[in-house]
């Protein structure tokens, strides 16, 4: 399992959109994981439906599947376990799960 989406929120009935991930030049994790992360371009960077920003290390986490509220994702560059939530502005955000 290499995708950072560790566990999908149960009860998601609608099929999830699939994404093909290309390398973006992110080189801070071992090669086979690199396409699952990219550098964040700052507050003006628009995230795709399969992306969420890690609040700990500010790297964008990318999945091959659309992300939804309640999904559990893993940020390899900083080793954080995160849960996808909806921010006040209605966009997806990640909350750290300290375990």
């Amino acid at each position, binding site marked *: 399992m290499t995708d950072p989406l560790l566990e999908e929120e149960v009860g998601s009935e609608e099929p999830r959109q699939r994404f093909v991930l290309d390398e973006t030049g992110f080189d*801070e994790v071992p090669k086979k994981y690199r396409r699952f992360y990219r550098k964040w371009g700052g507050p003006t960077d628009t995230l795709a439906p399969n992306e969420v920003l890690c609040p700990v290390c500010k790297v964008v986490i990318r999945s091959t599947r659309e992300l939804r509220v309640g999904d559990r994702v893993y*940020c390899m*560059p900083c080793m954080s*376990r995160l849960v996808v939530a909806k921010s006040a502005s209605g966009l997806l955000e990640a909350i750290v799960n*300290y375990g």
Partner: protein
Amino acid sequence: MSDFLSAYSIQNWLESCPQGYLLDTEYGHGIGEKESEAIASNSTLREESIRTTVQLVVGERCALAASSGLVNAAPDYPSKRFLATQTLDEARHVEIFTQRLYDLGVKKSELQSTIDQYANPHLVKFAEVLLEKVDKKDFVAGVVGQNIVLEGLAFSVFEMLHATSAAANPKFAHTLAGTIADERRHVGFGENRIGSLIKEFPEKKPEIERMQKDMTYHMLATFSAAFSGAGAAMNEGRRLAAQAEEAGIPSSEPARWHGANLQTASPEEMEAVLADTVLGEFKTRLSRIGLEYQTPSAP
């Protein structure tokens, strides 16, 4: 204990770091890369580069002392193992920034006297506050001071320096890029390990918050001193850039960082954007792990 470290391994560190983003580098930058000609040939810019790099060496020496000291204070082996890799990261940072001083013309025999001459006294105090906790083998306070306050500071400072150097001095920008990648792991360890430990030791909160307040005071005083003396070098850099443009050398896109145009911002504006960014991050990070940010008196 949180199991976040179970996913971490020395093997992963090897594949990510020495066999990953540090592959084919020397002292953290591309093989054969040199300091920019503007810095090498201009005494004002060279001296300011030495002054800035000395602060990085001082900060990294503190991080090396803290992370190595925390290995023996850590209550579990996964944390000891992580801190062992962090110790090597920090030793590498000390080495690459020291090497930059040599590249800028500092003689090996004058290294310590150069550091003593340019080190900001408030940065030295900042380090002392942290190392006092480490010397007492106070793991929780030490990790907050090292992996959240110091690393959080370093993360933003390195990003700002990287944005400033990306076009003008690729060698230094490449050196910084590797350290930023290292800092991601370090802040990740700080947040994740303390996020669970602070729940176990809530009685430590007041003492840790006092430490954060003291460290923040010295950090802001360091910024104030650094930017109040940087005006001449910033003007000189901009004068040379304008001269190059007049001579027909195309200028690079303006470097922006957190909304500020780094090529036109005044020293006061640069200090404000850096301080606001670091303090904003402190507040958010500390609040996430259950600590309340303490505002220090104005330096």
